[in-house]
Every structure is written in structure tokens, then in C-alpha cells.
């Protein structure tokens, strides 16, 4: 099998590959891809083209990176990481993605598979009722422009103030669930119109709410697992994957248009229109950063409201309060975002698009509860296979701007997946294997079949062996809700 590129790709280690600056005119830094030889060979052409396009952007520092779950995206590849000098570098919506602060949230419980299996049908029905999913779905939270502005600036904190969660949840969310610098005056009425009714909704595509089980034989680091609230012992967990919904999508669309014009003014040329960008310090760059932070906070709030609904569903089905069921938030982490972070080069603007922050032990940005073990990293696999909980490392901070993988990554198009299986058939097959699926769209379900994704275990092994994250436990699905 040959690589899907004519560019020279040099082996640095068994998990790190480098495309030198000589391989494409305009490259400012080399591109580095984290992958095993097998994963590297399975990567689509877009990964190589796009990561080297990113390496051409002004002010990029050290390397343009792609994680092992990388695949073709818009502008940046999915799995892309790039850090820019604040004074000479750019900010690009193409480095964040349409779904600003798409991210993962993991909630633990004291329940076991034995407790849940007899009530799984009722539990999934109740979750499906309480957490709206699919195209056009509206949430139960009614907001006016003032309260939506408060969501934009206060994120998950707003939810806690409104009674949608517990105060201690905030300590287990990246940035405490509220990123500073969000300015509602930088978002359009169109963006507000798309998002104001969607708080507490999942969306569709690859977004999901999943009930999972952690068995003892899939806990790889018992001490770290215990520190994260995992007992193993067939423990039930709940994972949520979603983002800022229509609001964030419109922020991205609005500023891609703004930046197309701004680039001409600033004399910036890019290899791909979807890499439209502006100098970070320019008025346009600062406005997008403020608007993107509004969307990021809205995504934290979205996942917080969903958590409130999940706790309510479990409490109703099991007849005990969420506190009594031990439904603590393990962590919530973004995987589509741009943030200012400090590295040896100074303060840098780190874009992560389909990539997760992975800070190691002792980092001041890691919650106090996890100072000794490092930041939790939640990676979602396909709905048929499993997901992983990992922790960040110092090596990630040194090598990858504190970044790692975010999921398994697709290998098959949605259209091909739909041709391979019908949603109803997949639902039946999964039920026979003990996974109960509730889906709004049967065609959407077929698009998310497990065979359309890479083997997440191989992706996780890559980042574990590369030392940029350490695996803690595998979580296997028993119930899934999809839009």
C-alpha cells in the first residue's frame, strides 16, 4: 500500500512522520503527522495536502501537526494542530471548524451494568425524550437576547446560576466552562437567530449521547482511573459529544466571509479558500476571537444543560437523586477551538481542530483534583466499538503544543456508508450485540456505522506509544442516542 501523496514523508520515530519544508512552495515550517505506519498509509490525500497548506500560514511556529485520527477537513485537516505567534501570526476559522467547541463530556455513576441492563430500554427512551436530537430540534430552555448574551459570556457558569447543574461541575470543565474575552457585540443577529432556541440539543452527524460500561479488564491504569472516579467493575458512564450548534456554525460562516475580504487588505495569500484568516492582532482577528469565545461558552453551556437532563433521566428511572447515583462530571474538553497558551516560544495562539488539549500533571490549567495525574482526555469512537479515557502528559506540552487525538476518524464517506447498510438493519444488528440505539434519522444512523471509522484502539495505541497521552480506560457502548 502506498501513501496517498507524492510528497516526501520522513520517519522521525515509529509514531512521528515529517514532511520537510522543501516539499511544497511556501511552507514556513515542516509538517508532522502522528501515526503508526499502518495509520499513515490509510490516511487520505487531504491530510497531506492540508497539513502542508497549514504549514504555509504566516506566523506558524515549530510544526503544522496532524494527529493519528486525522482526515480531510475544511482548510485544516481534522486532527490538525497549529500554533501561531501572537504578533506575526493569524487566526483562522478553518483551524477551529464550523462547530466551535465541539467537545466531549464524561459523567460517571455508581451504577453497574447489572443495575442498568434491566432498565436500559426505559432509560434510553427517557434520555431520548429529554435530550432533543436531530435536524431543527429545539431545547427546553427559553432565552431572550439578554439571557443568550449571558450564556455567551458566562458559559457553563450561567447554567449553574440557573440551576442546571452543580457548582462543583465547573472545576471539571476546561477553562471552568467559561472562557474570558467573549464579546456578544461581535456576533451577528443571524448567529443569534440560529442558536437561541437550541441550548440543550445534540444535533446530528457524528454527535451522540452514549451510555457506556467500563469493565475491569479494560482499565489500563487503575490508580489514575480511581482518581478520575472510575471503579471498573462494570461501572456505567455517560458520554456526550456535541458543540455550539447553529450558533457556532453561523459564527464560523460569518467570519470566513469577513476574512476572505480581510486577506486582500492584509495581503495574505492562502493555498485554500477555507484557510481564510486574518492577523490575530487585527480588528477582524480580534473580533473573530471574541465571537469564537462566545460560541465556545455556548457549547460548554449546551453540554451542561444536557448533563442536567441526563441526571434528571437517571434519577427518574432509578428512583434516586443524581447525587445518590454518584453522577459526578469526570471532565469536559473542547476539540474544536483556538486558545492563547504559554510555551517556551512565549504566548502562542494554538488552533485545535479535531484535536484535544492534553496538559500534563502539574499544569496550572489542570483542575486541582487532577494535578497529580494530568488533564483528562476524552476520545469518542464509533457507536459500535468503544471510546477511551486518557490523560495528558508533559511530553504533549513539549512536542504537540499540549495536544492529542480526539476520536477515531472516518475512513469511509457518508454516502458510501449509506450504500453499505440501512439504518434499520444496523439498529437491529446492534441490538443483538447489546447496544440499544435511538435515532432520529435512520439514514443518519447508517452514515455512522462502525465500519466507516478507523479502529480507535489503534489510534489510541499511537498516541500512548508516542507518549503524548496515556490511556486509562476503554468505555464500551450499551446505549446510544443519535440525531
Amino acid at each position, binding site marked *: 500500500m502506498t501513501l496517498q501523496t507524492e510528497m516526501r514523508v520522513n520517519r522521525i520515530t515509529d509514531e512521528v512522520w515529517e514532511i520537510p519544508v522543501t516539499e511544497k512552495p511556501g511552507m514556513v515550517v515542516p509538517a508532522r503527522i502522528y501515526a503508526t505506519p499502518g495509520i499513515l498509509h490509510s490516511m487520505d490525500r487531504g491530510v497531506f495536502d492540508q497539513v502542508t497548506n497549514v504549514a504555509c500560514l504566516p506566523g506558524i511556529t515549530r510544526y503544522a501537526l496532524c494527529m493519528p485520527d486525522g482526515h480531510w477537513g*475544511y482548510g485544516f485537516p481534522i486532527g490538525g494542530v497549529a500554533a501561531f505567534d501572537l504578533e506575526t501570526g493569524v487566526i483562522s476559522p478553518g483551524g477551529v471548524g464550523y462547530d466551535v467547541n465541539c467537545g466531549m463530556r464524561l459523567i460517571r455513576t455508581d451504577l453497574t451494568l447489572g443495575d442498568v441492563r434491566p432498565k436500559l430500554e426505559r432509560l434510553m427512551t427517557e434520555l431520548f425524550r429529554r435530550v432533543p436530537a*436531530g435536524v*431543527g430540534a429545539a431545547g427546553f430552555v427559553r432565552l431572550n437576547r439578554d439571557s443568550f448574551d449571558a450564556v455567551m459570556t458566562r458559559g457553563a457558569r450561567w447554567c449553574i446560576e440557573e440551576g442546571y447543574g452543580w457548582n462543583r461541575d465547573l472545576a471539571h470543565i476546561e477553562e471552568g466552562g467559561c472562557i474570558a474575552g467573549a464579546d456578544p457585540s461581535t456576533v451577528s443577529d443571524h448567529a443569534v*437567530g440560529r442558536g437561541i*432556541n437550541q441550548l440543550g440539543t445534540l444535533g*446530528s452527524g457524528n454527535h451522540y449521547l452514549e451510555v457506556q460500561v467500563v469493565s475491569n479488564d479494560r482499565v489500563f491504569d487503575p490508580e489514575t482511573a480511581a482518581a478520575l472516579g472510575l471503579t471498573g467493575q462494570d461501572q456505567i458512564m455517560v458520554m456526550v459529544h456535541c458543540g455550539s450548534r447553529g450558533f457556532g*456554525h453561523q459564527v464560523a460562516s460569518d467570519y470566513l466571509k469577513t476574512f476572505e475580504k480581510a486577506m486582500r487588505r492584509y495581503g495574505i495569500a492562502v493555498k485554500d479558500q477555507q484557510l481564510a484568516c486574518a492577523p490575530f492582532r487585527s480588528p477582524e482577528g480580534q473580533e473573530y476571537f471574541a465571537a469564537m469565545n462566545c460560541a465556545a461558552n455556548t457549547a460548554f453551556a449546551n453540554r451542561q444543560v444536557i448533563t442536567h437532563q441526563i441526571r434528571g433521566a437517571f434519577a427518574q428511572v432509578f428512583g434516586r437523586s443524581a447525587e445518590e447515583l454518584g453522577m459526578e462530571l469526570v471532565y469536559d474538553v473542547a476539540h474544536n477551538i483556538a486558545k492563547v497558551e504559554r510555551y517556551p516560544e512565549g504566548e502562542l495562539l494554538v488552533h485545535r481542530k479535531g484535536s484535544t488539549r492534553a496538559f500534563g500533571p502539574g499544569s496550572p490549567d489542570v483542575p486541582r483534583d487532577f494535578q497529580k495525574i494530568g488533564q483528562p482526555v476524552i476520545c469518542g469512537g464509533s457507536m459500535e466499538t468503544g471510546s477511551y479515557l486518557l490523560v495528558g502528559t508533559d511530553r504533549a506540552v513539549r512536542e504537540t503544543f499540549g495536544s492529542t487525538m480526539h476520536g477515531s476518524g472516518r475512513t469511509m464517506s457518508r454516502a*458510501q456508508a449509506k450504500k453499505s447498510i440501512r439504518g434499520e438493519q444496523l439498529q437491529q444488528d446492534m441490538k443483538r450485540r447489546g447496544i440499544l440505539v435511538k435515532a432520529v*434519522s435512520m439514514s*443518519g444512523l447508517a452514515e455512522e456505522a462502525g465500519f466507516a471509522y478507523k479502529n480507535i484502539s489503534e489510534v489510541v495505541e499511537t498516541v500512548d506509544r508516542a507518549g503524548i497521552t496515556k490511556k486509562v480506560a476503554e468505555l464500551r457502548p450499551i446505549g446510544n442516542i443519535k440525531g
Partner: protein
Amino acid sequence: MASSFRFLDDIALADLAFEAEGDSVEELLRAATRALLETLADPETVAETWERRITKAEDDPADLLFEWLSDIVYWKDAAGVVFHDAELFVRQEGSAWTLEAVLRGASVDQTEQTLRNDVKGITKHLYDVKQDGTRWYARVVVDV
């Protein structure tokens, strides 16, 4: 064949793409509109209880198509609707291309409608609108 569209299998791994064509800009927009409406939901399962009149003007057909499709995505979220059809007319006056359309559909109803993909945005990735002889063609990748 006044207009047609087809979904593309291999150019958008995680998302969806389609090609549309027509004998005029107006027919091209009709075909691309049908493709986007089909992406969101089966139009045959959607009633016509919601309606919005939309007028747009742009300097070229590519911008007009992009802005029109983006508007459909906006109304999907802002009004919480999916669509049955769109009646549309395009005219060229000097350098301006003007679209007048009536978008029709209904509030999302998971029990009655066959819902499909929740489109996040219309992208400029591989976006192309061109005229070849008397025929107009467009390629559109939508982020889902």
C-alpha cells in the same frame, strides 16, 4: 433535461457533497435547492404550513447560489423547520443577479417527517459554479 442534481460519494469523507446543473442560472439554483432540501429531510414527508419570501441580489451567480443556500440553512435553525420546496425566479439586471423565492415547509416533526442531516454550513471547499456552453454547473460541499 432542464435541471438535475446528484450526490457525490467520494469528495467529502465526513460530510456531504452534490453536483447540480441546469440550462440557466435559475434552473441551476432550482436543482441545487432540491439537493439541499433532500439533504435535510425527505421533502415528500414535509407539509407546507410555513412560508418565507426571500429576495437576494449578488454580483455573480456563484455568490447568489452560496448566499441562497446559506439562507436555507439559517431558516432551518432559526424557525426550526424543514422544507417541502422552494419556488424561485432569477433575473439579471446589468451586473446584478437577483433571486426572488418562496421557501415552503413545516416545523420539524420527528413523527411525521423523514429527517436526514442537520447541515451546519455551506462551505467554499471545492465550491464551483461554472457555465459550459449553454449549461450551468455547481459543486457544493455541505458541512454536516
